């Protein structure tokens, strides 16, 4: 479950592990509880499929989207919005920070080290065991170390988001669960929960029993979907 004790949730992980979808879902879920919610898109890695693409949805829900706007939203520039400082230090805001993939994406996060270090935050690492280079405990550990090094922050929790896109089966989720559990034990970072597409709720009923599960919807859709 999302830990509401922490005002700031930062989502990191390997490139393509599902950080943006999780960030969007967490922001929408937080808005059901909190009056003021902001999502910050720090993704300087992906040129498409970033959380800024669901801007209209955030506006409808009264969520502040902090991202390059207007022409800059689709520019080929590795930029972030300075507006983040407005919500970073405002205790009335719940803040979700969607970071770009791998160490290259997390480098962007490093610049907020001096702001974040004294704030109440959780830094989560998303695992998708079906992605190349993070399908093993060693691969996950290496990526975590690199992200911690460039961000100068410690990962505080792991999320299992193992999926195969539209072809995700229970088997994928279980495999990712075991992998994340093993990684969690190895690095002594708590395994917080597993995210599963809401469409699979029925199929994973038995697996979900007694486990921390967050059901998520997909927002990054392709024009034929």
């Amino acid at each position: 479950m999302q830990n509401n004790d922490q005002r700031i949730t930062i989502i990191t992980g390997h490139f393509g592990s599902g950080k943006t979808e999780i960030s969007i879902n967490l922001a929408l879920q937080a808005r059901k509880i909190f009056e003021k919610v902001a999502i910050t898109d720090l993704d300087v890695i992906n040129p498409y499929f970033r959380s800024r693409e669901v801007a209209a949805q955030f506006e409808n829900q009264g969520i502040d989207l902090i991202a390059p706007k207007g022409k800059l939203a689709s520019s080929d520039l590795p930029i972030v919005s300075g507006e983040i400082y407005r919500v970073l230090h405002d205790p009335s805001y719940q803040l979700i920070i969607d970071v770009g993939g791998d160490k290259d994406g997390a480098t962007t996060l490093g610049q907020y080290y001096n702001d974040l270090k004294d704030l109440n935050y959780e830094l989560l690492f998303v695992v998708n065991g079906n992605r190349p280079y993070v399908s093993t405990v060693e691969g996950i550990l290496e990526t975590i170390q690199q992200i911690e090094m460039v961000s100068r922050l410690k990962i505080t929790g792991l999320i299992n988001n193992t999926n195969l896109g539209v072809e995700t089966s229970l088997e994928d989720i279980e495999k990712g669960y075991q992998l994340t559990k093993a990684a969690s034990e190895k690095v002594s970072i708590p395994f917080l929960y597993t995210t599963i597409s809401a469409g699979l709720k029925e199929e994973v009923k038995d697996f979900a029993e007694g486990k921390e599960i967050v059901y998520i919807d997909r927002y990054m859709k392709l024009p034929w979907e």
Partner: protein
Amino acid sequence: MAKVLMKGNEVIAEAAVQANCKYYFGYPITPQSELVAYMAKRLPEVGGLFLQAESEVAAINMVYGAAAAGVRVMTSSSSPGISLKQEGISYMVGSELPAVVVNVVRGGPGLGTIQPAQSDYFQAVKGGGHGDYQIPVLAPATLQEIVDLMQDAFDIADKYRTPVYLLGDGMLGQMMEPVEFKERPAIELPEKDWAATGTRGDGGPRIVNSLRLDPADLEEHNNHLQAKYKKILENEVRYENYMTDDADYILVAYGTVSRIAKNALQKARSKGIKVGMIRPISLWPFPEKAFHETRDKVKGYLTVEMSAGQMVEDVRLCVEGHAPVHFYGRTGGMVPSQEEILKKIVEMAGGEL
């Protein structure tokens, strides 16, 4: 190998590695930079060489050098970078050097945008650089299809001693889908007895060159190239017919756009309009036969592209006035929607939504 979830650009790179390509020279550009990054990490793992050149012009000339030495080699870029590579590509054609060139197309002209487009069709299919030549162009629509076509691209390159394009768009490069890399038996390819690998007292030096100062000699060389293109036209056509058997109308689309068109087609069918689709997979050689077989049976074609109308010219050349050929396109990085295509189908069928 089990299925993995990958980004299109990563699939292009991994598919090339699986096709035994161990040399990559390139220069990053959005929306294909992940391909470059993947190669930088992956090629050293298989004992290959990745080199980020100082420019696209340098990269294509490094490809020329590696191809001349007889190895499987590739480069990739997006539209403006491919324009820069045209001189080198023409030289490779002249020297008959095999290589794969990937273009993950973005909106143009000029620096344009980083959003997806299909507006480099003419450049890929009609030459692009100087001189009389053709380049085989393969256009995958799914990430799984990239895996198969990449192997084909390298095989065609080696078989006919020619550069081959793999043409995608930003959407194909950036999207994620499950893919499986299956072992594919290697086909028999001619020995590269022309490659400049150094003499060992086994004859004179081998020279790989596109300079032919004697016009009669150059004309003969051109005739040789044209004969080769004829063979490619005969052997390397690839396309998919989708629900064309009973179709009154046929959509024509390639790459990612064909997937949008396919859904519009289903919606039109549910309204009682019998629509089929021809999806060219090889853009050159263009699948003439698919049109010759249908042009006297259908009431019209609708070509859908992310361009101002490029492939539609080839469709018209194949249909030769036997049926009307309509066009719908979006440009500048805009993507046609299912609804827009459906509206055009309904219009073509003389109805209203």
